[in-house]
């Protein structure tokens, strides 16, 4: 850890405090805790409507020890733009980080327009997308970032369906297409790598995009203790490549240390269990393996 958490009192002083109502084993709250530790108290944060906002700020309680605002679902990046503009014009921006947060739906679906605007206008904002691959807060409906063949409540598997029949929208490349100074993908499976990337954003002016794989216990349907393991398997299988890009060009990748077949990753999760029932399911797993293989080739992960 960057700071020493030696005593019980130290745990209570964290910038994102316990006492929130996130699920047991929630990887998103883990990610927020790790990010806040790096960014420090001179941070103003926005959150889109979603799990994080709901479980951290049930009136009159708040888990945030930094100034924080939630407005709506689709405008986290625009609200952050306004905050940044206000800080700039009043000369208060120096030394202050503006953090804009949303889930995958609030980022890549309903919030994509506001996010693209923030990128293109060049606001000095760190945007974090907590990607759990569906609309978890409303009960696990499909989003644009839901992976191929995943069960969700609006892309259920059935007699003639294997679940979500579209590939995951590749949001980091959309961010990179804006030629912003920094784009990175991280995972709660690798907290040191995650914190290193967050730390890097502190030295970069302009828009930064950080997407984090945050497994979801009830949405992905696994036991809470596997939150880290599943995130690591996503990376080691090649399904969730971790990398950094600057001005639209990939500059570093996290190499796979011990490659695993996608099956290892899929079999731990209830959202993929329909793929393990018959021969047709096996063929689907082959297709998912192909997605991983393509990622490995594209990013040079081995």
């Amino acid at each position, binding site marked *: 850890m960057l700071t020493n958490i030696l005593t019980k009192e130290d745990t209570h002083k964290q910038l994102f405090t316990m006492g929130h109502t996130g699920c047991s084993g929630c990887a998103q709250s883990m990610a927020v805790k790790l990010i806040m530790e790096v960014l420090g*108290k001179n941070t103003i944060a926005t959150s889109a409507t979603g799990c994080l906002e709901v479980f951290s700020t049930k009136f009159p309680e708040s888990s945030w020890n930094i100034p924080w605002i939630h*407005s709506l679902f689709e405008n986290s990046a625009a609200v952050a733009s306004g905050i940044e503009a*206000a800080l700039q014009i009043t000369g208060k921006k120096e030394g202050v980080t503006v953090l804009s947060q949303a889930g995958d739906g609030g980022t890549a679906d309903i919030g994509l327009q506001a996010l693209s605007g923030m990128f293109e206008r060049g606001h000095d904002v760190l945007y974090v997308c907590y990607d759990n691959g569906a609309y978890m807060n409303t009960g696990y409906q499909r989003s644009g970032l839901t992976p191929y063949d995943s069960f969700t409540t609006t892309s259920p598997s059935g007699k003639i369906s294997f679940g979500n029949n579209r590939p995951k929208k590749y949001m980091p490349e959309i961010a990179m297409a804006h030629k912003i100074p920094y784009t990175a993908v991280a995972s709660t499976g690798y907290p040191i790598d995650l914190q290193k990337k967050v730390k890097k954003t502190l030295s970069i002016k302009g828009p930064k995009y950080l997407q984090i794989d945050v497994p979801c216990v009830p949405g992905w349907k696994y036991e809470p203790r596997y939150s880290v393991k599943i995130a690591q398997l996503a990376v080691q299988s090649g399904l969730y490549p971790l990398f950094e890009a600057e001005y639209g060009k990939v500059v570093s990748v996290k190499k796979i240390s011990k490659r695993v077949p996608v099956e290892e990753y899929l079999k731990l999760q209830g959202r993929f269990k329909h793929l393990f029932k018959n021969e047709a399911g096996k063929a689907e797993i082959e297709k998912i393996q192909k997605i991983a293989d393509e990622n490995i080739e594209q990013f040079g992960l081995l």
Partner: protein
Amino acid sequence: MKKVLEGSMAISDSIRMAEPKVISAYPITPQTHIVEHLSQMVADGDLKAEYVMVESEHSAASVVLGASACGVRTYTATAAQGLLYMEEVIYNIAGMRLPVVLTVANRAVSAPISIWNDMQDSMALRDSGAIQLVAENNQEAYDMHIQAYKIAENPNVMLPVMVCVDGFVLTHTFEVVETIDHIEKVREYLPPLNMEYTLDINNPFSFGTVGEPSVYIETRFRLSNAINNSKSVIVDAANDYREMFGKYEGALIDPYKMDDADTVIVAMGSVLGTIKDVVDELRESGKKIGVLKIRSFRPFPADEITDALKNIKNAIIIEKAVSLGKGGILSCEIRDALYQHRINSVNVNGYIMGLGGRDITPKNIYDLIIKAEKQEDVDGEFYGLNNELLNKVF
């Protein structure tokens, strides 16, 4: 100083005087000239503000929301579809008690698409918690924006204020406007914004929390009280403005030639100019006729309107919006105000006119006055329709 100014110039000039720190807008006819003028002021260094060029009205409202939460004065402007697109954010701004000022260059709502004036757009936001003031002419548009900040930023109000100006009729028309020469006087009238709670790293509160059923209704009750209680603040803002700048166009309402009147025309916005011309003429020929201008539509001055109308025979309500499936909006609310005070002696005639930029002519108004004297209550009747067009086959 007296100047010949386009409505949009008058508005942007008064915004310059109010010195907002963050301006954000997305272009839409007929609001464009306002934000173009403001952009130029920023480009020339005449207004020290961040002008955030956003990709939509939704983001424009969100940017000023975020900036306002930091405790700085903000401004945005829109119209029609843009306002409807902003609607979600306006509700949010009001709920979070942020003193944003926005101009609505009133324009008809699609379909069919029309860039021309009526008040359907701002009417759609009447329940949002935003204060709605309506300007009659360019002078009032100028004065009203400065007053709008005074009202919005009052610690007992803390709500967005929407200044409604008729698109094209005011925004694109040149009139003589007396502007304020010294910005120091405006600063005296409008002291720097000082909010109790802001996004401040030294005092880190969380804004926009979840309101469970145990707190939601009380929060909305508080909001409802804030907008109801803003009536006295609107009156004070108008009176203080008169004292300091010598201009007064009414506060919540403004009666015109209403003493001894037995027929009164009630309206909002630029159509009042035409109505007053007709009334002036009829007064000369001895008709007892007057005009009641509604200057604040939200909060709705029900008591003040009732007090003004209680002794008259005929009220003619002219409005440029319609509640589809019900009828007139303003007429319905005035009828409700009279009913609440158990006044049933007034013959209320509500007409929907001028939608989508159709002219409301002096002849229309003469005809309505004659009609009113002969008939019983009318509610939300479309007036001035072209029957030939209605019967034509396309």
